[in-house]
């Protein structure tokens, strides 16, 4: 078995991911938190006696990177050496729009790569009357050219076989990107430093200013003009367009979808459909998951003998797992829609429509997609900001994304809103609880806009913002890609958030069931203090005394002075401490705290309603406290995964701290004001 390392590269929206899935099927792996093609993906397949390893790189437009995504690819291409050295490049071009692709192709070719050109969507090109002379392109560039349709699977075997062949000799090795006099300067410099590849040297001159006497600007524009001339010549001979066949659905759709009135109405409609599905459709499977876990918990309890191990499983581990799995339906639905929008090409129209509005608050049209994602989870949202070229716009988007209501806040909101108002309806069908939930979403949107505006004034604009976006043709989404996107994002969520939530549940259980001297001898203390209690009253008193003097209780007590002005007691304090790991832990912690605390078998809601504040003697979850808690959870950054991903993406300790501090301060101040006014 011989080995071959291959990389897939090309402009965005040429069907690279589809081809990658087609080649490698399920034999693929990705790094953490994948966006659609954000991370470096790799896979394997066998062809004849070759084992072929494929790396899928993010789509990129230019050898002069303008976003992090592009920088990643360009650096990869410039430093191809060592054990990861690739033998061949599969360059994917869009058969319906090959001009721009050939421009990039000629640059990659000049870097000295051995290329196979795969012209994708050949079926659509044919229907549009575009005829591509692959023979001619092959001779002209000195590469193998294969026509494929990644979607239908046409030409894939030919592509695999072409990878194993040697490339034909190119027509000329001459550089086509500089005028003769500058070509001579470059050539002399190449010889002087003994470089292997003259285009690589050209790039180090134009990107890193290696030869100061050269006008970088002039060389770059000379390259653009000469290369386009070269590509145009090739196109004139290699491609024929039969105008009578051109049937332009995209233009017709754009007239409506990008219309100054209809375009926005349709966008709002699309958002409504997404949110409606996330909340109402997901509630069914979420109900089933709840039922399953309560059945599971019950059966484990009846099978295992009672003891500390059993209660650890049923009260620590199982509720922890449930806290993760319960989000899966929402995440699946959300990523289903994102994949549809992205695959169809509509995502780029949203960017166009929203750019102006987003600019007002210091962001870009490209911020819209990450911001919509953060209604599901801030982690993939922050990863997705990599496509924003301008550093300031990207930083602002990262800073405000966690303010939007992510799905981890939902269970917290659901419980608190349930305690706040009964489930009544106004006008016969509008639920009051749903209205409050909607208000919480609006609060997130408005706060993030205000925060963005503040950051716009604070962060200096070192880099001039510019914005060029390609508008791909509309395509019917490939279900295979949609399923892959959903699978990868859900897997990443369950694994990354799951680790933290399950670990937090276990630690909490241990801290809540262990303690110091007072905890161990709680029976004696209680009996000494209340000698006249009945046996039942005694045991309730003892377990609550135990919790109060457990390590967890001590932690809650120690922060009580700080949270008392917000209307919380030490039990809420415990939940706040534990949900620094992740917000949804709040619900789990509450149920753990109160199931340790009470012998009766009540639902979490009933337990919370019965609870009284140990300081004031009034119900803990009164109106003012619930509002204060709702606001606290709306603003505070209680999510370790988000903190980790912000650090990873900004590589700045400063901005990671700023994000944590400003959100926590905002949460504290707003909850303080709300509680003091309402109580």
């Amino acid at each position, binding site marked *: 078995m011989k080995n071959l390392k291959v990389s897939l590269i090309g402009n965005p929206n040429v069907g690279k991911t589809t081809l990658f899935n087609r080649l490698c099927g399920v034999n693929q792996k990705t790094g953490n938190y994948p966006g659609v093609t954000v991370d470096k993906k790799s896979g394997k397949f066998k062809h004849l006696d070759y084992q072929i390893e494929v790396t899928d790189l993010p789509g990129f437009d230019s050898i002069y990177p303008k976003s992090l995504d592009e920088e990643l690819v360009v650096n990869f291409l410039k430093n191809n050496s060592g054990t990861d050295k690739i033998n061949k490049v599969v360059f994917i071009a869009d058969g319906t729009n090959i001009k721009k692709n050939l421009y990039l192709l000629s640059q990659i070719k000049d870097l000295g790569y051995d290329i196979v050109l795969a012209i994708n969507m050949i079926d659509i090109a044919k229907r549009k009357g575009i005829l591509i002379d692959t023979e001619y392109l092959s001779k002209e560039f000195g590469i193998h050219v294969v026509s494929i349709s990644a979607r239908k699977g046409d030409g894939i075997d030919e592509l695999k076989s072409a990878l194993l062949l040697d490339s034909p000799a190119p027509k000329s090795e001459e550089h086509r990107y500089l005028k003769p006099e500058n070509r001579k300067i470059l050539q002399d410099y190449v010889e002087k430093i003994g470089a292997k590849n003259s285009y690589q040297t050209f790039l180090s001159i134009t990107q890193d200013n290696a030869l100061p006497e050269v006008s970088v*600007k002039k060389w770059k524009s000379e390259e653009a003009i000469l290369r386009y001339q070269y590509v145009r010549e090739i196109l004139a001979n290699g491609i024929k367009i039969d105008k009578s066949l051109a049937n332009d659905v995209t233009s017709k759709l754009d007239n409506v979808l990008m219309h100054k009135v209809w375009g926005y109405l349709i966008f709002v409609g699309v958002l409504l459909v997404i949110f409606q599905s996330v909340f109402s459709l997901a509630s069914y499977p979420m109900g089933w998951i709840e039922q399953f876990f309560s059945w599971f918990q019950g059966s484990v309890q009846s099978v295992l003998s009672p003891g500390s191990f059993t209660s650890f499983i049923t009260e620590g581990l199982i509720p922890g797992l449930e806290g993760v799995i319960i989000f899966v339906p929402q995440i699946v639905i959300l990523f289903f829609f994102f994949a549809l929008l992205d695959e169809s090409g509509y995502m780029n129209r949203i960017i166009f429509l929203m750019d*102006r509005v987003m600019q007002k608050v210091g962001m870009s049209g490209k911020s819209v997609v990450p911001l919509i994602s953060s209604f599901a989870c801030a982690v993939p949202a922050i990863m997705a900001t990599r496509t924003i070229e301008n550093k300031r716009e990207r930083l602002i988007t990262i800073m405000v994304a966690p303010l939007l209501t992510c799905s981890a806040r939902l269970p917290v909101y659901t419980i608190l809103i349930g305690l706040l108002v009964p489930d009544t309806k106004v006008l016969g069908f509008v639920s009051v609880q749903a209205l409050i939930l909607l208000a919480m979403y609006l609060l997130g949107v408005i706060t993030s806009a205000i925060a963005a505006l503040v950051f716009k004034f604070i962060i200096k604009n070192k880099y001039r913002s*510019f914005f060029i976006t390609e508008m791909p043709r509309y395509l019917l989404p490939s279900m295979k890609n949609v399923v892959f996107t959903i699978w990868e994002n859900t897997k990443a969520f369950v694994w990354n958030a799951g680790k933290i939530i399950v670990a937090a549940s276990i630690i909490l259980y241990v801290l809540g069931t262990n303690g110091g001297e007072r905890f161990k001898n709680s029976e004696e203390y209680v009996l000494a203090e209340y000698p006249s209690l009945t046996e039942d009253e005694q045991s309730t008193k003892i377990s609550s005394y135990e919790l109060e003097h457990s390590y967890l209780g001590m932690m809650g007590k120690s922060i009580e002075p700080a949270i008392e002005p917000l209307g919380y007691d030490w039990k809420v304090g415990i939940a706040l401490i534990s949900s620094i790991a992740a917000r949804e832990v709040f619900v789990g912690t509450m149920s753990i705290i109160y199931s340790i605390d009470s012998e009766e078998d009540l639902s979490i809601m009933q337990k919370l309603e019965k609870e009284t504040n140990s300081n004031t003697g009034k119900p803990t979850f009164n109106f003012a406290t619930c509002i204060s808690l709702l606001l606290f959870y709306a603003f505070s950054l209680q999510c370790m995964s988000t903190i980790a991903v912000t650090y990873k993406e900004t590589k700045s300790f400063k901005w990671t701290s700023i994000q944590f501090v400003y959100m926590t301060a905002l949460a504290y101040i707003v909850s303080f004001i709300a509680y003091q006014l309402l109580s």
Partner: protein
Amino acid sequence: MKLSNCQNNTQYTVKEVIECDFDCKLMEYGIIPGANVLVLNKAPFNGPVYLSIGTQRIAIRKEEASYIVLE
């Protein structure tokens, strides 16, 4: 005339790209002297300009479009 203040659904020829930080970027997208551009649409409130150049469609902000001089 500049691309930033031209008519929808009209074909223009690029005369020059004024020197700026991103002129090379525009050229990489095929906006070079002599190229034909068709303005398809403009987003409201001075939003981006949507244009087709050759067989591809791109959107650029109005500010960038003001660096593109038409014949």
